[in-house]
């Protein structure tokens, strides 16, 4: 049994690289997902992942399959959409979700246009579904650096960010942290999506960010607990997903996300904090 788990990683270096990459990703993205969920912006990750596409496509057109060019392009496009949407939400009647929807749709259309005019469909699939089994040193370094940076920045903005989620008005009226915190957080969202899209593809990058976060809601009831559980779930999904992909010979990105989905469904059913099964058990209420 232990052999079956360790053997693929001992034998193949691409599996080891994939594992390291996914673990690094699992350290950075899930905490971001926790805050997205707490801010009721869960679907924003999805929208942002689409927004990244034209940037990555332009990077691809200019420099071919260059990690650096595609990441930089994706980052620039994602940042532009996030900041524009954030600014419009803060200065007009439009809410953040609506203004973001407008921008990401435009961005996605542009991305598809660029890719279909110049690239072949196989390349598009490459961009969309990632290459977790072909992570080179550069890619690993990128993913690891982004995770490290994102954890450090999160530690710095932790308190204002919690306040911004819980009681934005209080933060606005007592300090000048509100907008800087919000925009720093948006930058972190984009950075982690860019890092995830290298390994898992744009579509799957959102999965590793959000599925562990919503799973954690069934196991923890404070913010730090949520973050810890989310990271552990992401670790577990990465490991089991890689093994599933190895033994069943299925694509890695979807395998990891599917397993994260399995953890989610199991947690919905039996999670310690409000899992469905507890509602079905006849349990007497407490004294106070």
């Amino acid at each position: 049994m232990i052999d079956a788990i360790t053997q693929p990683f001992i034998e193949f270096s691409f599996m080891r690289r994939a594992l390291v990459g996914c673990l690094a990703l699992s350290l950075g993205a899930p905490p971001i997902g926790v805050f997205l969920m707490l801010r009721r912006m869960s679907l924003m990750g999805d929208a942002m992942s689409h927004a990244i596409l034209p940037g990555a496509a332009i990077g691809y057109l200019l420099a071919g399959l260059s990690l650096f060019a595609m990441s930089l392009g994706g980052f620039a496009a994602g940042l532009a959409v996030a900041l524009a949407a954030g600014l419009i939400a803060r200065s007009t009647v439009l809410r953040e979700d609506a203004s973001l929807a407008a921008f990401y749709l435009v961005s996605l259309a542009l991305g598809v246009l660029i890719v279909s005019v110049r690239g072949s469909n196989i390349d598009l699939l490459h961009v969309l579904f990632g290459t977790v089994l072909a992570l080179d040193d550069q890619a690993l370094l990128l993913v690891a650096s982004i995770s490290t940076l994102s954890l450090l920045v999160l530690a710095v903005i932790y308190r204002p960010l919690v306040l911004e989620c819980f009681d934005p008005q209080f933060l606005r009226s007592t300090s000048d942290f509100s907008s800087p915190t919000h925009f720093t957080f948006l930058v972190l969202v984009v950075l982690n999506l860019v890092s995830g899209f290298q390994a898992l593809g744009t579509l799957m990058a959102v999965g590793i960010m959000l599925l562990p976060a919503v799973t954690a809601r069934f196991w923890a009831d404070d913010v730090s607990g949520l973050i810890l559980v989310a990271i552990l779930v992401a670790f577990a999904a990465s490991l089991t997903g890689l093994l599933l992909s190895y033994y069943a010979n299925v694509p890695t990105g979807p395998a990891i996300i599917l397993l994260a989905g399995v953890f989610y469904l199991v947690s919905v059913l039996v999670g310690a904090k409000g899992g469905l099964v507890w509602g079905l058990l006849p349990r007497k209420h407490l004294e106070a």
Partner: protein
Amino acid sequence: MSPRPEPAITFSDLTLGYDRHPAVHHIIGKVAKGELLAIVGPNGAGKSTLLKGIVGELKPLGGSLKIDSFRKSDVAYLPQQIEIDRSFPISVFDCVAMGLWREIGAWRGLDSTRKTHVVQALATVGLQDLGVRPVGALSGGQFQRVLFARLLLQDAAIILLDEPFRAVDTKTVADLIALILRWHEEGRTVLAALHDIDQVRAHFPVTLILAREVVTWGETRKVLTPANLAKSRQLVEAFDEHAEICARDGEARERQPA
């Protein structure tokens, strides 16, 4: 008579509103330091708007206001419509501890002295046993007490309360009024938008009657008359979609010395 204290807030022909339509306009006056001021008026009189203007949520459409404070955190504000996400996974203790922002900001830790302060604040509002519970588990009135505990810790010189007693039982109202009076004794400036006239008569020395403009402003027992209240109800007439540009803008400028 003691010399008149310095103003905490000065309104200079202040107009506040939304989308060019004023909600309150041409407010001129001063709130003295340490004053306990009740703002009354019918629905739509502009009470909340005025408080929002003071705290900086709304930019003036005209005129200006000056607050005697150096930092944003000198003003504490309890809005009527709180944007708080009550389902957020945070404990009552942590929620109240946010009031210490002015002292600890974004990065300083919560040492044992400050923890004691948080516990004391909770005890003051009678919630000492509920610190570990999540905020989502509290009732509406209990949560209002939590917000008052947070205000206590904010230690602000100016405190703005917008309808602080909605959905609160009489016992809690009495407790919260005692707190407000304590703030008044400590020399803080307190402005409260209220609709219970008896409460105002009983506890607030100064009253501002608002009806989209100042109806009267002065000692409560003098200004809080049935005639003034009736006048304020009449003045809050319909919002006019095609309103002309306010003619008083010119007048006010002429009245002011250059």
